[in-house]
């Protein structure tokens, strides 16, 4: 019973992070859902096998590894990238329908563009950037998740920011 309650608590806490990270990495909603589900199934199977403080790192590491597996397995992922952009845009615009349309649209486009630009980052930079800037992980946690030296994490974040800056050159407000 305690294990079940613990599992439910972890699911509620990490489900959005898992899905968000997977979405940026695999660039495909359906695959991101599959990855998320697979991560949560593995979490259930491994309940009790890890110490609580390390569970966040374990979850994100599993998510990252599954994303890499998906990317390597499915070559057609790249062909879906345009489809994803539309997907993002539609969702964001739909979500903001009730607000002022003019301001909302401008904001939506900006956010959508930012997301697209992040998605276009090289895999190694993107993973670090998303974990740090979007998911709010710390350097040490990212180092654990990606099995990467701490200094490499800092360097990759810096490079990702520079790359993103280049991508977003044309969209200054």
């Amino acid at each position, binding site marked *: 019973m305690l294990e*079940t*309650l613990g599992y439910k608590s972890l699911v509620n806490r990490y489900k959005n992070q898992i899905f968000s990270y997977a*979405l940026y990495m695999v660039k495909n909603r359906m695959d991101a*859902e599959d990855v998320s589900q697979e991560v949560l*199934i593995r979490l259930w199977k491994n309940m009790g096998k890890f110490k609580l403080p390390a569970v966040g790192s374990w979850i994100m590491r599993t998510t990252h590894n599954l994303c890499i597996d998906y990317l390597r397995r499915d070559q057609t992922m790249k062909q879906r990238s345009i489809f994803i952009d539309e997907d993002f845009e539609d969702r964001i615009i739909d979500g903001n329908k009730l607000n002022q349309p003019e301001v909302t649209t401008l904001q939506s486009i900006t*956010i959508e563009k*930012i*997301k697209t630009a992040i998605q276009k980052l090289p895999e190694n930079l993107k993973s670090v950037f998303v974990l740090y800037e979007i998911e709010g992980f710390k350097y040490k946690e990212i180092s654990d998740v990606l099995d990467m030296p701490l200094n490499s994490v800092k360097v990759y974040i*810096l490079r990702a920011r520079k790359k993103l800056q280049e991508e977003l050159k044309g969209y200054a407000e």
Partner: protein
Amino acid sequence: MQSNKNKIDEETLDRIISAAYKDAGLIERLKIYFLAKKNAGVKSIYNEYRTNADRVKKIPPEECPDSVIESLKIKTMKENKFFILKPAYVFIISLIVISTFIAVLLYQNKEKKPTYSRAEIELAEKQVKESLAIVNRIFKRTESLIQEEVLPKRVGKPIHKSLSIINEVLIGG
């Protein structure tokens, strides 16, 4: 920006980016701020990065679709409803079991009166009488002790009075 970049070395650029993304400490950010005030190139770069950093921060979190959790329930938590209700049920059932157990104990405790055989009662009677006899012997011995050992050493009314009190009280006159 390219020409600006050439004027500003890579290390300074890294510092500007860190300050723009608010990674740097307060003192470092103040340094960059004062540097930006003196150098237009620094200011320009800082503002560009700062703009994109703010955009990144505004990205709303992705929410994991409910369908992922629902299908997860089907796959791993078939008795999910039972799990949700379980804590309350377990508590109530435990309460009933423990109450019953303790009620039986209490009932047994109250109702439990040892039954003695005739032989045991006769033995107890004998023991009671012997106990009283022991006490009597002690009282009698006390009287004689005082008379034989204490009195010869001390002569006086108080002692004598004590003796008669003891005599009356303990021996019964």
